[in-house]
């Protein structure tokens, strides 16, 4: 048990912050601590969690990606246009097209970073601008409102009316999100590919000397993020029941902050799916709670920023830095005593 805690300090710290936050919010508003609100939070967070587990793979392998959210917008547009060209399509075709277009866009990033040796943040800021620029240029900023019925109709796997009259709903985005989490977790911790990605992010030169195919690592990590971005884009279109070219613009920084909050290290080699999910949920819970308490939406960003700072300070477990010198010295003495 102690090993479990010490090897998952970030996750436990996040859970602790989340529990404290929930206790606080449940006093603030009685609508917060209800089953239906919990499902609301899940439904709202699903798209971001799908993005986050994709980004997690890139961060673990030592890269970073700024372009995935606008890439998802490109995927939405291309997928909806392709589906209408196919005469409507269905869920299977939707996932295949969205996934493939996503992987394709991710592979462009991998190509720029591996072949042309451009560092990942610069490469993906460029593709962020290119993807978004092309999308705005060709769509002229026009949204698509008439989606195929199967795409815009809500898919509910489980629903139930609670005693207080509220509804509990388990919707498609949440189910897809859970599948994406399981798939990412499986790949990263149970397959040789996952071990190679961790190793490559941790010590690229060491991985190279072990004969790991560096080009393949780039394609897999950015391809996986592309796949997740494609799926997330499709889910977002389904959830919003429309395709707006700039709907996801700016989402990349929220997801990045939440993923790093969840313990992924900028620089590679570290991060977990659980931490990543907790990171996104913490931000969502904060927003949800503030919403229910009737706090002005203009204050949201400020409070979310503060929560991220508090959580990341706690999870990096450097409380001792906050203590004055003398206390540190006596603490050290105590710990040295056999």
């Amino acid at each position, binding site marked *: 048990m102690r090993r479990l805690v010490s090897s998952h300090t970030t996750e436990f710290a996040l859970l602790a912050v989340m529990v404290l936050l929930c206790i606080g919010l449940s006093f603030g508003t009685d609508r917060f601590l209800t089953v239906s609100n919990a499902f609301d939070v899940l439904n709202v967070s699903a798209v971001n969690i799908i993005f986050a587990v994709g980004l997690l793979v890139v961060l673990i392998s030592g890269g970073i990606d700024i372009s995935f959210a606008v890439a998802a917008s490109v995927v939405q547009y291309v997928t909806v246009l392709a589906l209408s060209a196919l005469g409507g399509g269905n869920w299977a075709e939707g996932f295949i097209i969205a996934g493939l277009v996503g992987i394709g866009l991710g592979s462009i990033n991998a190509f720029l970073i591996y072949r042309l040796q451009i560092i990942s943040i610069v490469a993906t800021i460029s593709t962020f601008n290119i993807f978004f620029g092309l999308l705005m240029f060709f769509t002229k900023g026009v949204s698509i409102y008439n989606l195929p019925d199967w795409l815009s109709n809500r898919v509910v796997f489980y629903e139930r009316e609670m005693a207080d009259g509220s509804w509990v709903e388990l919707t498609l985005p949440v189910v897809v999100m859970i599948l994406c989490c399981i798939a990412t977790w499986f790949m990263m911790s149970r397959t040789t*590919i996952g071990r190679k990605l961790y190793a490559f992010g941790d*010590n690229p030169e060491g991985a190279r*000397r*072990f004969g790991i195919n560096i080009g393949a690592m780039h394609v897999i990590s950015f391809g996986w993020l592309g796949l997740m971005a494609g799926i997330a884009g499709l889910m977002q279109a389904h959830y919003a029941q429309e395709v707006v070219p700039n709907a996801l613009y700016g989402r990349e920084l929220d997801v990045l902050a939440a993923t790093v909050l969840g313990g992924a290290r900028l620089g590679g080699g570290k991060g977990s799916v659980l931490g990543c999910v907790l990171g996104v949920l913490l931000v969502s819970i904060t927003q949800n709670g503030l919403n229910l308490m009737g706090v002005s939406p203009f204050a949201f960003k400020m409070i979310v920023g503060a929560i991220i700072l508090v959580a990341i300070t706690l999870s990096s477990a450097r409380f001792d830095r906050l203590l004055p*010198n003398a206390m540190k010295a006596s603490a050290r003495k105590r710990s040295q005593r056999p």
Partner: protein
Amino acid sequence: MSAEPLLSLKNIKVTFGGVRALKGVSFEVNAGEVHCLAGENGCGKSTLIKVITGVYKPEEGAEIVFDGKPVSAMTPTLAQSLGIQVIWQDLALFGEMSVAENIGFQLAVTGTYGMVDKHAIDEAAEKALARLGVRLDIHKPLKELPIAQRQIVAIARALVGEARLVFMDEPTASLTQSEADYLIEIVRNLSASGVAVVFVSHRLAEVLEISHRITILRDGSLVGVYPVEGMTQSRVTELMTGRNFDSAVIASDHDEAPVVLSVRNLTRHGEFRNVSFDLRRGETLGITGLLGAGRTELALTLFGMHRPHEGEILLEGQKVDFASNRDAIRAGVAYLSEDRLSLGLNQPQSIADNLVMASLDRILSHGLISPAKKRDVVSHWISALGVKIGTPDDPIRTLSGGNQQRVAIAKWLAISPKILILDAPTVGVDVGARAGIFEIVRKLAAEGLSIIIISDEPPEVYFNADRVIHMVEGRLEAVYDPRHTSLSELESAVYA
């Protein structure tokens, strides 16, 4: 030992862009042998290792025979499957992974059906560690291990790959003496179990202690292969460099000179306590002791990076209380860090920029950096310290370890310090360049600079300091005068 060598190479020639790195070298290792490969930086040692591991192709006419079978073209994969493993100086380990995952990494990337078998990895790690006779918590993240234990992890990883021949490139460079002794014990176990070990090290004492035979290279040519019996350090040095370095005690009295630094009962809880000494003008003081003796911590306190909890520091008779190392630098204290490659120098930047890094306020003109003043300072120190460079605008990483160390010293000399603290100044610097660095130290002392040399190699302070302080677990154990003490007395005190 079998009559036939495990590995034999003949007539190995390698040329890089017109420069002959290896000029027809031959090399042999027997099974179960500890073989030392010695030579100065740039003599072709690492090129030879890279030929053996298939990274570089030798020119026509080369012959490689492994285990009695000729190898026509060596590749990294072939070398691995033959059981040839290299433990690189930087270890190439993965800090965020556990000890077990590091040791069993080969299994983690070659699992059946692409699946990782955690039990098989743990088992392989336990087995490899048991074979080395070491106990480690295999679930600990590697980054929490001290560097000596990481070395062991790297060796254990080689064993999982069924090693028959292990190259160790400077395995003890960043270890203290007791850690190095432990590693040497492990190398012995390895050799006893039939694995051949090729050892590359700048520490000649341990080379002579551990090896059966020694192959010496100089300028890409073979000087010779010698049995270790009857070899001495100075003989090896002579063969490596083609020159002769005499070690002689240089200690002299400075009792007449004014006291520059006076340390009184200095204490930092958990690091060092009650340390008192004087340092006079032009004097060189050596500080030695094992890891954890508090040497570096003491130096960092003198340099204002840490504040003492008790006691006082007097600089030319005035009590000082440095709030940060900026104050110390202003007062004329310079500290050359232990880890010069990462902390002391900015590797991608130019030699000139590195050299003026600590003395920027001295090359200002109207508040801006004056290119002319900068040029003057740079050319002055480069010629004063005999740094071998192309142009001052080359990145510093293009220089050898010895020349980088000279630039690092020059950086501090440019602030005209009163006290220069050198922490482990010869780590990663080869034998010829070491002598050059101590020549500079001697010259600076003669010019009136007070110097503190910190080293965990007793001979280094014994031959280069006027007095030697021996620290044990944070306290000043004894002060030695090299003129009245023999080196072996000092060494037995330190290693007792």
